């Protein structure tokens, strides 16, 4: 007999979603095939089942989408803010109404646990649209006046124009919301390219735009892979580029737009330090470390991938952490009890495997959660490396998977020094019961978001974005308006 306290399977029903065999590009309010008929397949990463065929937008399609956005810009930007607000409120409400369907669809296409898509991703998507809906008629209150350097002036902020937006696969619909909601609130129109492995919720969102009565051309969704994204960013009539993804691609974008008048915001990679002082509440810190690195299987740009623990409590903390990780349930993303789902793609899985192999080869000590992984699909067990030095690749490179490195420190100054010893600067965590120490540390961390005694918290009112090679520009709150206004 097995463990009598073992969980029974608790699968969320798939019946709520209806996936079509094939999807076109959403341009000017209608779906159409790519001009050259290009297609790719999107699969369920937990089963490798093909979910649908997706059109691959080429240069001609991107051009058509940008033209549609340009045409729509004139009337959309001229609408009173209160009118734009009402469209965004409608979208927020429709997302709330379709929340369960979107959560299931996201988990099927992305591989993340339903518990996360249902309780984190989709509620945040609705909240983000709700938040920016309210900004649309309050831009004059945001304190972001129009620049006098471009022959205009005044206290009434104006939109930039057509935004080309490229988003990643780790939070597909949430990243769409972060891009589309502020852009539309400020009066811009958008052409958005979802990630090639996770296009389905973006396409469902296109249908929601139609249901909301959003004017044609205000939102255009052009699916495809890297080439489609390149064509969008390079298009001469795109005024604003917004990208979330890897630092390597971010640098490529910066080079592409050099010498143009395009505005750009980049939200890139991270290698966040999670600092645990000896006066931390250890049980809370352990939960925070787990949340920090295993949320969405560590496929999170702000993941707390580098644990920095004060030497005097390192043994106690690691023992507790190991015990906690052993309770994690890896498996079917649609099971409501699953903690860690599938890795999004074969390509991402091989990157994780390569870096983990490098960690072992360079002399760090690996511990992985034992247990059988599903036979099909892309899986990697929660993994912790100890004996890590600053020179190891696993301590420097973004792994983007459920892999934690552990280093120790003796003084607060050493913790800060080690935390900042990275090219990245997206996020960081601090664990201590002493408020003054938490704030002292936070003020010295070169990171765009610092969580104290918590981790991976997001809110539409709270600006998010990086220092250094984690990119620039902020998404969320009043600060997030600046990226989409002519300031």
């Amino acid at each position, binding site marked *: 007999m097995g463990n009598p306290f073992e969980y029974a399977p608790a699968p969320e029903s798939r019946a709520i979603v209806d996936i079509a065999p094939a999807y076109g590009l959403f341009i000017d309010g209608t779906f159409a095939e790519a001009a050259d008929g290009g297609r790719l397949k999107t699969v369920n990463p937990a089963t490798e089942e093909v979910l649908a065929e997706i059109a691959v937008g080429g240069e001609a399609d991107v051009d058509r989408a940008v033209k549609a956005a340009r045409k729509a810009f004139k009337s959309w930007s001229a609408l009173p803010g209160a009118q734009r607000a009402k469209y965004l409120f409608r979208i927020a409400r429709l997302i709330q109404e379709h929340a369960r369907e979107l959560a299931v669809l996201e988990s099927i296409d992305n591989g993340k646990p339903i518990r996360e898509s249902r309780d984190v991703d989709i509620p945040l998507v609705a909240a983000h649209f*709700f938040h920016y809906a309210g900004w649309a008629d309050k831009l004059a209150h945001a304190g972001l006046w129009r620049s006098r350097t471009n022959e205009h002036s005044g206290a009434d902020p104006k939109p930039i124009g057509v935004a080309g937006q490229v988003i990643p696969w780790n939070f597909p619909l949430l990243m769409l919301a972060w891009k589309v909601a502020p852009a539309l609130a400020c009066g811009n129109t958008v052409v958005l390219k979802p990630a090639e492995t996770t296009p389905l919720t973006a396409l469902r969102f296109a249908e929601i735009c139609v249901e909301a009565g959003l004017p044609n051309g205000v939102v255009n969704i052009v699916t495809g892979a890297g080439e489609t994204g390149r064509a969008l960013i390079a298009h001469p009539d795109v005024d604003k580029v917004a990208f979330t993804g890897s630092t390597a691609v971010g640098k490529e974008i910066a080079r592409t737009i050099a010498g143009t008048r395009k505005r750009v915001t980049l939200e890139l990679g991270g290698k966040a330090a999670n600092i645990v002082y000896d006066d931390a509440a250890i049980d809370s810190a352990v939960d925070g470390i787990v949340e920090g690195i295993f949320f969405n299987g560590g496929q999170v740009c702000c993941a707390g991938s580098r644990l920095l623990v004060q030497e005097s409590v390192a043994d106690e903390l690691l023992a507790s952490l190991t015990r906690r990780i052993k309770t994690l349930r890896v498996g079917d993303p649609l099971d409501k009890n699953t903690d860690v789902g599938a890795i999004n793609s074969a390509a991402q899985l091989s990157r994780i495997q390569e870096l983990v192999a490098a960690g072992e080869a360079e002399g760090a000590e690996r511990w992985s959660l034992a247990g059988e992984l599903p036979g099909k699909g892309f899986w990697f067990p929660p993994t912790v490396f100890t004996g890590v030095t600053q020179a190891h690749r696993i301590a420097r490179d973004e792994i983007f998977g459920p892999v934690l490195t552990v280093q120790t420190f003796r003084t607060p100054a050493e913790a800060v020094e080690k935390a900042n010893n990275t090219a990245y600067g997206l996020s960081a965590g601090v664990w201590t019961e002493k*408020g003054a120490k938490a704030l002292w540390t936070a003020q010295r961390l070169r990171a765009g978001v610092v969580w104290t005694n918590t981790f991976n918290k997001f809110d539409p009112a709270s600006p998010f974005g990086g220092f250094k090679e984690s990119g620039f520009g902020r998404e969320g709150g009043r600060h997030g308006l600046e990226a989409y206004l002519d300031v």
Partner: protein
Amino acid sequence: MSERLEVLKTYKLYVGGKFPRSESGRVYAVTDSKGRTLANAPRGSRKDARDAVVAARKAFPGWSGATAYNRGQILYRIAEMLEGRREQFATEVAAAEGVNRTRALAAVDAAVDRWVWYAGWTDKLAQVAGGANPVAGPFANWSTPEPTGVVAVIASQRSSLLGLTGAVAPVIATGNTAVVLAAGASALPALSFAEVLAVSDLPGGVVNILTGHPAEIAPTLASHQDVNAIDLTGVAPDAGVASARDLEIAAADNLKRVLRPGPKEPDWTADPGTARMLAFTETRTVWHPTGH
């Protein structure tokens, strides 16, 4: 065949999420601009006013402690519920204000849109009116606007729904709770509006609506020691009500925040800005040392 006999509504107060009659058992006949009786409205007493303050105070911890996002959701829900009752309110506003149907409908639409506008403010005011303060020392220091508490609102007697909305929405958007006095013919749309509030997920007691004679109830609210602020807009000099100055003097007893009436009835259709929200917020500044 006999003509169908209309079922008339009994108008009742709205206190603590319930619809009681006035404890005094009194009503007054509400008449339209031509002197015809529209209905009876409860004539609230000083005791009703005190009961409403108790209800508002009881609701304050929950409402002010709700997340700004949650308050925004509920204010937006009020707009949704009001939108669905446009016809009803157009009829009631036309009767109460003696305006034609087109103007009444425009006022109802403007009221819906005003609720949407304030729904969007709940989670933004702190970023516009608050902020981090770069003090010269090892401290984290920040300021946030916080609700002042229970706010008494002497509502407009002329703009029965839009004026009521323009006064009440900024009070509750920021987390205050309200005791509203609606008088004259405005009483009827105000009490019908309570029915909208009652189905909008708004916790009972956050908005309490009294009707009656301002000369009787306003002094009780102005001098009440558990009321933190008072909006005297509805006591505009040209509104023909008792002296706003007397009420302001009474309000001084516990240093209520007073929103004084202007020289004339406000233009409720104009962009309200942030003034009404800021009138009923306190700035809280937090100092916290940094060091190790």
